[in-house]
């Protein structure tokens, strides 16, 4: 009888402990937000704070245009409560939308509502997806992410909006600081030549490449993938060489996500120096100066100013 009593008490205590632990776990569970790119993941972290776990499909330095989805990515998206993509075909063959659709997860497009730039690429009008290169557009991304997170966990609306206000003010100050820094470059030297057409929004916002309608100059098109108007063509390459020679660009730039071979060849051919490596479609690795959006924009600006002023 004593043994039975002891067993009963132990059983009851065990049941209570398990119930207590499981209810604590349920109360402490955080929603999982999965972003396609490192920039969007950074925006989401700034807004979500400790109220959500934010993961990025792309690793720092990875190219979203040519990215191949892995089984790990499928697993990550299956565990997501909210998926966020850049959209505008930045994710080659819309891989993020496909992942979210297959896993039946809610997907928001962070670029919804930005002032889009259309570029002419081989007679085709292409909408440039690299909208985050204008901090004003980054603010639109942030507002969309606040809306998405609020729909996911409405009880945290106040926290998301409070963090959002702070981050938006930081973006405003960043924008003013970029203008001040770029002002050090004389107008005739404001020529930005990069590996691929990622910097159109930056050029339009900060008035680079006046002779190219304030759009970027690059041998590779808007995407490094195989989409219409993407990749390198002999005509594009010739045009870039002509532009560099005509404009007297003091330096041209390689990008962190793309093989620098093309741009090095062009630098050699035109006799200009390489100004450095710009963060473009992906931010820098953890511990680097470009591991956040603000850090990435700051480092790009300093690199450009130092090479061109």
């Amino acid at each position, binding site marked *: 009888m004593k043994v039975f009593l002891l067993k*009963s008490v132990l059983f009851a205590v065990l049941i209570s402990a398990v119930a207590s632990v499981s209810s604590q776990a349920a109360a402490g569970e955080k929603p999982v937000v999965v972003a396609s790119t490192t920039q969007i993941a950074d925006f989401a972290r700034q807004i979500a704070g400790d109220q959500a776990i934010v993961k990025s499909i792309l690793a720092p330095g990875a190219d979203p245009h040519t990215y191949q989805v892995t089984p790990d990515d499928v697993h990550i998206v299956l565990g997501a409560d909210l998926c966020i993509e850049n959209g505008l075909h930045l994710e080659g063959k819309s891989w993020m939308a496909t992942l979210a659709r297959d896993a039946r997860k809610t997907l928001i497009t962070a670029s919804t509502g930005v002032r889009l730039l259309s570029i002419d690429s081989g007679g085709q009008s292409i909408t440039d997806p690299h909208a985050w290169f204008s901090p004003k557009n980054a603010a639109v991304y942030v507002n969309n992410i606040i809306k998405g997170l609020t729909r996911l966990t409405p009880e945290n609306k106040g926290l998301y909006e409070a963090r*959002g206000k702070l981050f938006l003010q930081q973006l405003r100050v960043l924008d003013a600081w970029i203008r001040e820094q770029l002002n050090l470059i004389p107008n005739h030297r404001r020529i930005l030549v990069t590996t691929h057409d990622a910097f159109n929004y930056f050029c339009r916002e900060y008035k680079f490449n006046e002779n190219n309608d304030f759009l970027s100059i690059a041998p590779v098109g808007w995407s490094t993938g195989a989409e219409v108007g993407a990749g390198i063509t002999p005509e594009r390459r010739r045009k870039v060489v002509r532009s560099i020679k005509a404009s007297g660009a003091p330096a041209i730039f390689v990008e962190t996500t793309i093989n620098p071979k093309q741009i090095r060849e062009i630098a050699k051919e035109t006799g200009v120096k390489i100004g450095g490596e710009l963060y473009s479609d992906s931010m820098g690795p953890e511990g680097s100066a470009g591991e956040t959006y603000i850090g990435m924009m700051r480092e790009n600006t300093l690199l450009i100013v130092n090479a061109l002023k």
Partner: protein
Amino acid sequence: MRFLFCLVIWIVVVGGLRVYTWHRDAGLPAGPSPVQAVEQVEGAFLLELTPTFSLEKDPFALDTGTQSDALLTLNLNGRTLEVPEGELLRGKKIRIRDLPWLQAGSNEIYVKASPPLAESMMDHGLRVRLLDRGFVIADNTVWGDRGALVSGTIRFRLTLSEDDGHDH
């Protein structure tokens, strides 16, 4: 029989734990302490704002569909004041007479305004004056560094006199 006995023991243990936690938490305060009553002051108050810039829509404002940042945010003791409609221009005084939440003791005015991005190369300021029947009660200027929003708080005290109800 054994099952019933087990159930009784389970109820006793869980019930005991429940009673223990209830007793433990009974001494804790139930919620926030009641806010002290404040005494409103009456007078012919006028809040006067003079910006060094013309206010324009901020592309970096919070805009979530349900809430958007106003061009000029003005809070008195934590409550939002109505800002007169119309253009808010450089050097033009903005006057607000409806100040319902002024109280005896400490008061705080919070202002936030967005200068034009095209003027992000310069600092901007917003002069804030509170007057009562033409007498200046508070006068301060809130500054914003290059590119930043102009925002800040102004604190002042109001006291009630025994004869006419107030004295500042």
